[in-house]
């Protein structure tokens, strides 16, 4: 019986990684949900747009590194984020102008816009791969760990070590800041309110003098910020690879729908729901039970609910279950 060790074990292998992964998903999911709520289509180019923003950030990071600029213990990529956001927003507005706006003005059905977004997905993917190549890129520098397992063991005298990577703390911290600013913006400012009104009822919003062009532009700008920050944080925490980013689109969609599509707060929580359930269900609890149970009752199998190969499948199964029982998501969707 050793509760402390067991708790540290869970913290180390489940809670901290899941919080970081969940934050990354949450940023992406809010991006999807905003586009869905205001522009009214499922954006299949989500993952690739995130990889575009990350790519720009990586290029700037390399440039800064070659100049010898760094942030000391923090990764240089943080400096590159604002510049990357500018490029990302420009790219998104260009795409909107040349591709999406035509269908929006024509009031095409959402399916057609989703199809168009597939075209954008192909193009963005090509641009990213042509510029930076399809390979794995690591662009992290600075201090890697805040607490190392060995240090922690020495400090506390416990058997289990706790490792906290600086990228994990950074991810959670930045996400909280970005998301709280976003919610403040949506709920308290006039522009945010006009966006919510537009999402709620387009015609009424137009009648009360809300400029749709402005709403759309601001939506893309916020989307650009979210996509870049989410993408860079994921890349810092793991690594940047265009194919992985494309694949990340799927859990992000799952998070957005689970939270209730069109509802930013739902998407935010949805990210954590997906991340936690993925890691909870695929973790092998053998060691945990070794600490929790008396010695003679030690389990002899891994006590793993699902093998880690099914990590992605877990989130999709949750999505299917949610779609079956609560098609509007856990938190009522489509309010914004």
């Amino acid at each position, binding site marked *: 019986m050793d509760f402390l060790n067991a708790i540290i074990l869970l913290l180390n292998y489940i809670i901290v990684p899941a919080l970081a992964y969940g934050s990354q998903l949450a940023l992406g999911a809010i991006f999807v949900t905003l586009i869905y709520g205001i522009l009214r289509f499922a954006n299949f180019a989500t993952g690739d747009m995130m990889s575009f923003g990350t790519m720009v950030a990586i290029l700037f990071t390399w440039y800064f590194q070659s100049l010898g600029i760094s942030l000391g213990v923090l990764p240089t990529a943080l400096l590159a984020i604002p510049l990357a956001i500018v490029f990302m927003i420009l790219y998104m507005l260009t795409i909107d102008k040349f591709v999406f706006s035509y269908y929006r003005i024509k009031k095409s059905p*959402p*399916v057609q816009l989703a199809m168009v977004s*597939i075209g954008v997905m192909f*193009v963005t993917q090509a641009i990213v791969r042509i510029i930076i190549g399809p390979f794995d890129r690591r662009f992290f520098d600075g201090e890697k760990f805040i607490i190392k397992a060995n240090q922690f063991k020495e400090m506390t005298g416990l058997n289990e070590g706790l490792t906290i990577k600086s990228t994990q703390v950074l991810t959670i911290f930045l996400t909280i800041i970005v998301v709280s600013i976003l919610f403040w913006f949506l709920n308290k400012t006039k522009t945010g309110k006009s966006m919510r009104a537009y999402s709620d009822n387009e015609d009424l919003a137009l009648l009360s003098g809300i400029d749709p062009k402005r709403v759309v532009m601001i939506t893309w700008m916020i989307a650009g910020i979210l996509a870049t920050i989410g993408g860079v944080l994921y890349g810092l925490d793991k690594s940047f690879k265009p194919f992985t980013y494309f694949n990340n689109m799927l859990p992000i*969609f799952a998070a957005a*729908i689970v939270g209730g599509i069109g509802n930013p707060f739902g998407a935010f929580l949805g990210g954590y729901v997906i991340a936690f359930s993925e890691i909870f269900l695929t973790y092998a609890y053998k060691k945990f039970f070794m600490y929790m149970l008396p010695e003679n009752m030690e389990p002899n199998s891994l006590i793993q609910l699902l093998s880690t190969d099914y990590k992605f499948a877990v989130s*999709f199964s949750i999505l299917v279950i949610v779609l079956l029982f609560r098609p509007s998501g856990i938190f009522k969707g489509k309010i914004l």
Partner: protein
Amino acid sequence: MKQYANVITAYAIMIGLIILVGIFQSWNIAFSIFNLCLISAVMTMGANIQWGYAGLINFGIMGYTALGGLAAVLVSVPPVREAWQVGGLSMLFCLFIIVLIVFSIRYVLKNFQKSKRKNIYIASIIVIGLIILRIVSGPAIHSIEAVEPAKTGFLGGLGLPIIFSWIVGAFFAGGLAYIIGKVALGLRADYLAIATLLISEIVIAIIKHEDWLARGVKNVIGLKRPVPYEVNLQSEQWFIDLVAKWNRGVLDLISTAEGKQAALSQLVIESSSVFVKICYSGLFLTVVVILLIITQKALYSPWGRMMRAIRDNEEAANAMGKNVVKQHLLIFILGSAIVGIAGAMMVTHDGLFTPGSYRPMRYTFLIWVMVIVGGSGNNFGAILGGFAVWFLWIEAAPIALFLINLFTSGLADTNAFKLHLIDSVPYFRFLMMGIGLLLIMRYRPKGILPEKINIK
């Protein structure tokens, strides 16, 4: 005749392009492009039935393709007796348990009123069932995978000719479509797209990681072919005679008998692989033609009219007494079954099953590009889309290389920018697909060959 003019022109151009590849690159490449074009055409027809006839959006094409491929493995590979001995019974028992779970859930659903208790019952049935499954299957899977893991390590199949798998694949994919349709068809269009995409990912995850079923990512290679092997052909007298006859003009130019013999054997080796590809083309063409006749008949039948009515105005069709839900489910199954056939055909053609290669980009989104580009609702358009897009997908790299060289001809060969561009030639295909799709969506939203219904 006049109304078919554009169809005939489009197809003539397409065939002409493939022939050009044959002349300028090689006939081997031309026929392998042609074969994959035919397979793509079958997939596109399946997607077109769902999207063009009924307006259902199905992004799960990858899943059905993989199931078709799985069928090819399960039908054609000879059974692994040892594996069956050590774990076959338990696996059969697991199947029985799954059936039991399904039926008990059905029973609960039918005979209990809507309440919290019902949900608890269902949840507990699933949880208990899964635990029993884990307990029964765990050791069995372990011992099955331990049987010669380098070569087999799975249950194997039935050992039948692989051609049967085309039908079995259709049934597999149709079965999956039945389940997905029951779950997801009530959803709005874009939700349905996301849901099917994610479900197909689940299917791929299962095929990839259940090694006892089809070796997972370890791949199954050397599947039996329905057509002759090159090596056997090269020693057949009739084939050598045929090649000699075909290339008489070339051979006559060589004066010495020895030189003639050497040239002939070289020609035999080359043409044997072309001959194999032609055999495949014949088989695939038969499937495409049969499917085309059936789908064309269906399109002009009362049933096709009803489907179009449902697509164009669901409520009106419902008010006229058409069972929209049932028809949607039916067409979802039919379309998916056709995709399943294509999946089995593809594995038959490759002779190997590699679950790791099933990626949504290639097997879902590309097929959708084909449907949109070709012309949704028009079977000829769908087939043309399959041909044109696959041709571009393969030939994009040479075209891109040509264009890059053309535009950067002013730069030195060692220019870093030029070298970088030449290195990234393979990714220009994505660019071409994307721009092609966007242009078609914008300026010809109904595709190259738009839907044209002329009731006689």
